[in-house]
């Protein structure tokens, strides 16, 4: 993905990641400025702008308990930026991101140092890279991913999960680091076409998953959020079959399932914004954690349906249930 407008904050203009970005995108309009990004490129949609800013601390943030899926292991996410050029209609960042355009931090060495310190303090930490951004969205982000992977290599007990919908897998460090898991966020193709505009198609993601399996990476499949419109069974049955095929060569993979849920404001926004029927006509009730989610009988039925079709070869966990 290439942005149409690049805003570089003066503090990071000399960073190697910025130089790499400019070298990788010689034709992109770039401005070094402190001005608000939308004012710099007033004609561009926010998702077509990219801001490279300075990281000011607090890279490693604990994951909310409701979003954790690993019992007994601390989980955190890396806040090395926010947003991505994808425009998923259900994205939780809709109602909580403070800016509407993608922002990535460019002072990689400072972030790597903080990650190193955090892992020294919590040696078994499981860190999510891709919780509030997509680390493979832009090709020039390879040094960022590489720097974090290099830190992980010094902390054998820690694990980093790189979660993505993008397919630029040649950006990943090679050979496969032992404590890096590459997880693809997947949805049935008809749903992805409608609800995940701006992201690679599901077939391309499955091809990337299969390729990484053959290259020996530790993998993950994330069906989160699972959308449950009328007739969801056929679409998810086909997807499960495709996932099993893509993981055929994988030696280590795990699967996380989570049905669509969120704060009332988010669910209200995504239903009102639904161009089709799947989200708008969904039934949502207040669950025990105060979020809105599908009724429990439907959630259980869907989770049972998916686990039966995904098989027992790889562990399956639920998230937010």
């Amino acid at each position: 993905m290439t942005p149409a407008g690049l805003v570089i904050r003066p503090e990071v203009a000399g960073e190697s990641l910025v130089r790499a970005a400019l070298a990788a995108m010689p034709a992109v309009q770039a401005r070094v400025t402190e001005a608000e990004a939308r004012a710099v490129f007033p004609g561009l949609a926010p998702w077509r702008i990219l801001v490279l800013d300075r990281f000011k601390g607090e890279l490693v943030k604990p994951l909310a308990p409701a979003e954790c899926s690993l019992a007994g292991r601390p989980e955190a996410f890396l806040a090395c930026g926010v947003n991505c050029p994808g425009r998923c209609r259900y994205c939780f960042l809709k109602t909580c991101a403070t800016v509407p355009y993608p922002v990535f931090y460019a002072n990689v060495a400072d972030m790597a140092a903080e990650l190193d310190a955090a892992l020294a303090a919590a040696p078994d930490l499981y860190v999510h890279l891709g919780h509030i951004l997509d680390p493979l969205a832009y090709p020039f982000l390879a040094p960022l991913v590489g720097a974090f992977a290099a830190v992980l290599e010094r902390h054998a007990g820690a694990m980093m999960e790189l979660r993505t919908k993008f397919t630029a897998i040649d950006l990943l460090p090679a050979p496969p680091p032992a404590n890096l898991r590459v997880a693809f966020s997947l949805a049935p193709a008809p749903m992805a076409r409608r609800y995940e505009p701006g992201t690679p198609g599901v077939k391309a993601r499955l091809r990337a998953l299969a390729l990484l399996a053959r290259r020996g990476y530790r993998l993950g499949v994330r069906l989160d959020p699972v959308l449950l419109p009328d007739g969801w069974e056929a679409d998810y049955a086909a997807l499960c079959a495709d996932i099993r095929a893509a993981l055929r060569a994988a030696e280590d993979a795990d699967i996380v399932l989570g049905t669509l849920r969120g704060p009332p404001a988010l669910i209200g926004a995504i239903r009102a914004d639904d161009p089709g029927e799947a989200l708008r006509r969904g039934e949502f009730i207040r669950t025990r954690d105060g979020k809105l989610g599908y009724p429990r009988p439907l959630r259980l039925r869907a989770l049972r349906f998916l686990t039966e079709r995904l098989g027992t070869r790889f562990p399956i966990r639920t998230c937010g249930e």
Partner: protein
Amino acid sequence: MSSANDRPPVEFLPAGALRADTEAERRYIYTRTGPSERLRRSIAARGIMTPLAVAPDGLLLCGARRLRAAADLGLAEVPVVRTADAVEAFLAGVWENAAHREFAPLELAGLFRRLQLVAGLGPDEIAAVYLPACGLPSSPVLLAKYLALADLPEEIAALPLRPSHLFLAAEHGGRDAAALAAVFAALQPSAGEARILRELLADAAVRERRSIAQAAALPEIRAVLAADTPPRLKVSALRSLLRRRALPRLSAWEDAAREAAARGGLAGPVEVKLPPDLEGDEIELRARVRDEAGFARAAEALGSARARAAIKRILAILAGEEA
């Protein structure tokens, strides 16, 4: 800063000579309630002791309730001071009013909006200075809620609504807010009930690709609102109706579970209580027993094969095995 000696002289003008036209009310006057009985009694006994503030052309800036009381009491003249600085007079009126009276929520909303429009104050200053002056916590979030009230359609002010109704309605725009306010005015729900009704109405509307106003205008909903029954029964009926529209599949599972209970003989001496919204994996069995014979009937009902089959079916529904 001007001293007391610089103040303009007090004049006495006929009450009818003061202009309090619609434009003036929109710009300066935020009081919606009339003069209190205490104010009326005070003016009847001693006249108006604090002069009204008027612009040089006689436009009323401050003292709408005093003027109303004077007119009601038939006072020939009222004391006024003319001020060339309308904003200063307005702010003085705000502080004076805030010092001695309780504002209704819509009055506060009007006051805060006028602090923006007339005095040109920003939200930070209003939140920091004028919310505490009116006895409210200094909170930008709270200020935003009051400013949303100021945008409610005019006709809502005349409806019998509690503050919680107003704030809920104000979370929606124009016609939707007016429709919600009309529902709340007809049913007088508690704050919690109002919130649930609002959520269900919004859910049903979004499912059916309607606005809240369009959903509230559906004949079956209007029929509930117009029914000749006590408001609390209307609340219950509307909640049930909206829930079925918003959650048809969940309602169908609940119906199936209740039907299974009835077929299993668990709707008489023993009753099945389902978890709310089926959000749980346990059911509660309640036996109502008054004597030994009643206990025997309950035990018999519970021990029957059809009761066991019913409970198995209900638990399967809860587990999503029949979803």
